[in-house]
Every structure is written in structure tokens, then in C-alpha cells.
């Protein structure tokens, strides 16, 4: 099976967010593999262990993305591809990313593409389904179980807490939800091996794309932090009085009950 994983690097979940000149300040921030992409990575390796084949992890990013790609290789991916757009593209959106990925997949023989169901930074959740549409293959989002039986694929997906059982066919794109698996940590031998695994670097030129082909359809005009919340009130006194005061505050001051 030819298995591909779409990966994105994101801020570490513990990072504090600061805004500078209408942009998120990323100087000195710690980056990680988007947590949902880790489920995709893990599932790709599991499916390869079961069905054979090769796992290629692909990212659209900049030279710093190499770190996360090496981690993915250390987890067990066979090959990595970095589509480095830093030099060519100033602004991107999901349209841009998908246009680039579509060009990348144009000459590839694909059985399965896995992605996270959402990235924790921009949280659009668009790239997977948009790409499947361009490649004219079916997709299933927020999956929590994946069984490949020949050409038939049986999937369970999370739909706002309910479980939907879906049957579909390969080639297929899925986006992964928490609960699908427990992503492994890279082992020490894995990390050593990863250094020697192939990491291909491509630019727009290599995909026969011009800058105008990937011009975004949306524009970010401002980024700002939510207003600082006023310090809350910790109630005092006898518990019974506290509860009475709370109910009165919720009823009369906040008017939420």
C-alpha cells in the first residue's frame, strides 16, 4: 500500500501566544507535530505493519519543518517530503496548501492518505477534505477506527459524540480524531535510523506551479488577543451563604439563570 500522511507543525500546546504587528509572534516558540497528525502518523505505521507498503510523510512548510519530519521518520515513516514554500509564497490559506498538495499528488499512485482532523493553530479542518475532492477520491473525517479488508474499508467516525459506521473503498483520504490510537514515541534506534532515511525537498518550481497559481482566496487583516478577563471573585463566608450569593449573582448580575 502507498500510504501518505499530511503533517503540519504547530505551536506546542503549552506555548503562550503573543501578537506583534498583527501577527502571532513565533520567535523562540517551541514547535511540535500537530497532535491530530500524530494519530495519522501512528495509524499509517499500523496499517503498513498489517498490509505492507510504504509510508511517506508530506508537509508544506519551511526549512524548520525538517525537525518534525525527522520525528515522523523516527516514529517509523519510510520517506519524508518537505515542500518548502518560504521563498515563493508570502501568504497562504487552505486553498493555497491544497493547490500545492494537489500538484504533488498528481503523479503519485495513492492508496491511502491520512491527516489530522484539524490543526490546533488555524483549526480550519479544511485541507484533508479539500484535497480529496481535488484528487477525486472519497474521504471520511474524524475517524476513530480503520479496518482495511481488501478494497473495502470499514470505518468508525466520531460525530459530535455519536459513532457512525461507514463503509467505503480505496483509494481514500481520512482525517484522524482522538481515540483512533495511542501515538508511539520515537525509539532511540528509530531516531538513529531516521537520520539516514530519505527527506526530499521540493519547491513550487518542482511542482510546475507559479506563485499566482497558489494565491490565497482569503486574507487575514488582523490578529489580536482576547480581552484580558477581569479577575474573578472567589466567594467567602459560610458555604450556605456562598451558594446563596452565587445563585443571586448568576440570576441578577450575570442574568444567565
Amino acid at each position, binding site marked *: 500500500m502507498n500510504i501518505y500522511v499530511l503533517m503540519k507543525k504547530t505551536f506546542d500546546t503549552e506555548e503562550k501566544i503573543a501578537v506583534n504587528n498583527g501577527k502571532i509572534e513565533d520567535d523562540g516558540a517551541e514547535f511540535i507535530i500537530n497532535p491530530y497528525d500524530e494519530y495519522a502518523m501512528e495509524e499509517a505505521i499500523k496499517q503498513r505493519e498489517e498490509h505492507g507498503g510504504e509510508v511517506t510523510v508530506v508537509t508544506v512548510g519551511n526549512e524548520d519543518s525538517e525537525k518534525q519530519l525527522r520525528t515522523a521518520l523516527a516514529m517509523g515513516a519510510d520517506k519524508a517530503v518537505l515542500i518548502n514554500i518560504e521563498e515563493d509564497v508570502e501568504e497562504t490559506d487552505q486553498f493555497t496548501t491544497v493547490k500545492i498538495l494537489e500538484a504533488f499528488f498528481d503523479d503519485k499512485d495513492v492508496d491511502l492518505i491520512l491527516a489530522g482532523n484539524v490543526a490546533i493553530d488555524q483549526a480550519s*479542518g479544511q485541507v484533508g477534505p479539500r484535497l480529496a475532492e481535488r484528487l477525486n477520491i472519497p474521504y471520511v473525517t474524524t475517524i476513530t477506527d480503520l479496518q482495511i479488508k481488501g478494497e473495502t474499508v470499514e470505518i468508525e467516525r466520531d460525530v459530535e459524540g455519536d459513532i457512525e459506521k461507514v*463503509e467505503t473503498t480505496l483509494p481514500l483520504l481520512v482525517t484522524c480524531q482522538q481515540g483512533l490510537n495511542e501515538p508511539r514515541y520515537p525509539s532511540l534506534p528509530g531516531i538513529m535510523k531516521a537520520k539516514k532515511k530519505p527527506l526530499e525537498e521540493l519547491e513550487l518550481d518542482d511542482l510546475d506551479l507559479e506563485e499566482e497559481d497558489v494565491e490565497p482566496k482569503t486574507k487575514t487583516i488582523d490578529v489580536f488577543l482576547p480581552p484580558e478577563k477581569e479577575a474573578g471573585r472567589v466567594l467567602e463566608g459560610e458555604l450556605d451563604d456562598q451558594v446563596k450569593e452565587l445563585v443571586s449573582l448568576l440570576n441578577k448580575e450575570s442574568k444567565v439563570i
Partner: protein
Amino acid sequence: MSRKVLVIGEIKDASLRNVTFEAIAAAQKISNDGEIVGLIIGDKDLNESGNTMIQYGADRVITIVNEQLKTYTSEGFAQAVMEVIEEENPEAIIMGHTAIGKDLTPKLASKLESGLISDVTDIEVTGDNVVFTRPIYSGKAFEKKIISDGVIFATIRPNNITPLDKNENRTGEVSSKDVTIKDLRTVIKDIIRKTSEGVDLSEAKVIIAGGRGVKSKEGFDPLNELAKVLGGAVGASRGACDADYCDYSLQIGQTGKVVTPDLYIACGISGAIQHLAGMSNSKVIVAINKDPEANIFNVADYGIVGDLFEVVPKLTEEIKQLKVNA
């Protein structure tokens, strides 16, 4: 500039979801006295739902009823919606950022080669510009975005845009449209309901959430009682789910659901940053925790330091009293 706006409505358990009315309110802002066209899809007669959409502000509604659209599939629904888009040529399209909205709209945007701004919490219209605000970095920041090219297309987060008042006297045309659905490559075999009947977490106005402090499955009982009295839903932190006190379907946080109720009562939740990401934009937050140093108190509007098993039942009683006296 006035615009024709298509609102893709959503039916759940045979009735329109609230977010559909919120989407109509969003459409009204964007349309600037243009036309608001509703669209609903299903396998049974949708006339009543169509009229309801009109009472909430749609000018006319198109219904598509087809046996193959009984359960949602991206392929089936996309075929139906695309026929309407091609016929109506809307200048804007709005839908709820729900499980179906998240799954369907990227496919439509990809077909249309258009932009799509998802998970919008606010809309401002200044002159011809429509500016969408959406949370990023799990609500730790916000961005304002515009569509720079092509159709205006957005999904709105439930519970953030106030619906218009229902007007029973409002009338408009509800027309049905026939479509042929073909070549479905995905089939829904079964749906297993895990969410309890009652209030949907993502649309709930009141949420009572439990964390590790709840200590057991039974520990959720007082929270359920309080939720019942307030007509709210029960949620949980990852800690409570990991400890198997409740199902992952209740999880609120970075992985899990993002909620913005009017009232969020956190019981025995320490307030890890990943949990805050899922609820910190709630309008009013109450924290109940034994540990006065717990991080949850930093985001709470009101806090009670104490044992949730003492505090929550008292709170339930007090609210019952309030309701009786009201």
C-alpha cells in the same frame, strides 16, 4: 451592495438545529437587504422546517427530499447543494460549524475553488467588506479575515451569533427541488448513539463539567442533577475521561469539543491549559474546586473553594428554590 445569501440549514432528530437560525441572522448582516435563500435536505417532507426558516428570517426556502439523502454523506449532500448553488448563483454561503458543516463545506469550497472561513464567531459588515472573526490557537487569539476572491463562504460556530426573533406572520415561498444522486462511494452502515438524549453539548446554553475531582462514574450524579434543573448539558475534562468516569463524547478541550455556553460550571476541574482552550470563551464561568490554587479560578468569574459533593447539591437546591419562587 446587497447580496444573495444561501443558508444551508441542518436538521437533527427531525427538527432544525438552532445554529441554522444563527446562520440566517449572519446571512441577514451579509445580505444587506439582499435575498436570503434557505436550503434544507432530507428524506422526509421538509415544508414545516422550511416555513420555520422563513419565520426566522429567510426570504424563501428550497427543500430537497430524496431517499438517498436520509443520512448525511459528503458526496450525496454535495451533489444536492451544488445543484442549488449552480442554479441560484449566491454571492455568499453560510452554514453552521457542526459535524456536517465541517465535513461538507471544504468539499463545496474545493469544487467552487473558493475560499472558506470556518468557525466564525463574529461578523462585521463595513461598506462592501464582510469581516469575519474566528478563534485561532484554541481560542488563545483571534483573527479577522475577509474573502479576497470569489464567493463569500463561511461556517459559524454555534452559540455565538444571536438569531433573529421568530416572526410567526412572516411568509415566503417553500419550493421543493428534485435531484438525482449518483455514484456514492461511502455508505453509512449504522449510527450508534452515545450522547444521551437531551441537550446537545455544542449548542447548550448551560454546561456543568466535571474533572478528576468527580472521582467516579457515580460522582457525575450530582452534576447531572444540577444540569437537569438548569436545562443544561454535562461535559467533562480530559482527566475525567481518561480516568473512565465518563465517555469521551463528553470531553471539552483542545482535543474534544469547543463550547461557548452562557454559563459554564466547572466542578473539580483543575483548569489545564488544554481544557481552558475548549471553554474559556464561555460567557460566565463558575469554578468549584477544593484547591484554592487551582488554575481554573484564574479564568472563573465566580469561584467557590470547597468540596464539589457538598457544594453542587446545595447549588441545585438553591436554584430549584429560585425557579419555584420565579
